[in-house]
């Protein structure tokens, strides 16, 4: 079986105490990835860019609605993901429109985390 582990946290809640900061520091992540690799379970992982860089695509009555931000309805649940290499946001949005979820749910397009974001 393949499993996807989804990480949730409050973006604006910065760890305050040295212990908390220690707990999320890069070496902790690297150690965990090494451990997963050694166990032969890690297929792929990545962080996401902050929600401020998210764009949501919906299609309603044949019209494409593109909005700024991650506006998932509370009654919508994460149902899957695509990881695409695109030249720019327009290309990513073009693919997002084709995903069936856009017609009855929403597709959030978010760049992967990168240095400086």
């Amino acid at each position, binding site marked *: 079986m393949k499993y996807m582990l989804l990480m949730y946290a409050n973006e604006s809640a910065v760890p305050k105490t040295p212990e908390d900061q220690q707990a999320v520091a890069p070496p902790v992540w690297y150690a965990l990835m090494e451990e997963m690799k050694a166990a032969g379970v890690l297929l792929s992982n990545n962080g996401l860019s902050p929600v401020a860089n998210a764009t949501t695509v919906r299609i309603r009555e044949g019209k494409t609605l593109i909005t*700024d931000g991650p506006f998932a309805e509370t009654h919508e649940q994460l149902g899957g993901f695509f990881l695409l290499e695109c030249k720019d946001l327009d290309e990513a949005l073009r693919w997002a429109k084709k995903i069936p979820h856009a017609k009855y749910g929403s597709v959030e397009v978010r760049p992967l985390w*990168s240095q400086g974001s």
Partner: protein
Amino acid sequence: MTIESQIEKTFREEHGRVLAALISLLGDFELAEDALQDALVNALERWETDGVPRNPGAWLVTVAKRRAIDRIRHSKFEEYNPVILESLTQEEPEMDDSFPDDRLKLLFTCCHPALALEAQVALTLHTLGGLSTPEVARAFLVAEPTMAQRLARARKKILEAGIPYRVPPADLLPERLDALLVVIYLVFNEGYVATSGDSLTRQELCGEAIRLCRVLVDLLPGSAEVRGLLALMLLHDSRRESRLSPTGELVLLEEQDRTLWDFSKIQEGISILDEAIALHDPGPYQVQAAISALHAQVPTAAETDWDQIALLYDTLAKMTPSVVVEVNRAVAVAMAKGPQQGLQMLLRLENEADNFYPYHAARADLLRRTNQREAAADAYQRALELCGNPAERAYFQRRLDEMINPK
């Protein structure tokens, strides 16, 4: 004109085109804005003594390019791509009279639907209109830090989410162009409808929207709707002086002093509308401009061609069905065929329009015309409860008083 005001005017006029060219050249929105700021400071010093150069835009591009190179060289963090620096320094900066007009790219980037609408508006005014952050903040009645943050966030998203700097390909162009016209019309309405705040700055928004739309007409000469919007704004703007009474109360079209209308704007609006119609691609802005033109062309309210206006509202309702259009259509029908017919049409909108004050205002005016004072008073009261605009409220209040205490 003093040299200061000449420089300020030049900055405004050249800002969009220079910035657009710099973004193309540097491939970096923020660096381009910073470099242009440097160049403007430079220009202010130099032009005050030497005068404004023959081609100020090219002057600014050349100087900003040099400043950008300095900035890249002095940046400690190697945040800029070395390839950019290499390509920039290869050719010796020179006074070149011609530089590409990339304003359309900049407009499409600023009005990208992945940005919040309020950010699109602010960014467009700031980058293409050349309005400073405090000016944009004043125009939209928000605190300066709020506006600065809004602009910064938009720039950051353009960069980090990969919003492209280009004119969209043909298949995306129609919907993107619509978004662009929405932003320009929003800027206009912000200046036209609002009566609070720094009215001078806010009135400038109308002028700014018209200027941006003129640029867009130059850039997309084949688009009928771009011309339609320009015509619509000019025709609306022609009535600016007569829309408010000296005490700040809204004056309805039929009661306006038509001698206050700006006839050069009306003439220009009508001739631009004719050009639009000649392109044979009808759209909602052209229809609205045509309605506005019918009002503008008659010397007295009594001569208004309401039959024709009602027909145009029929067309508009088919193109963009909405409660707003339906209310206006009912008013036009009332004027053409009698208030009873209009009232019946309004009655059918009762459920969907109950929270929409223009609906109650239209109903109130028709009830007043048919002498149903009590019902009219109730409707004016509802309009008053729902409306936040002081000029319109003053009008509703006066009518309400008339209904309760007839002279």
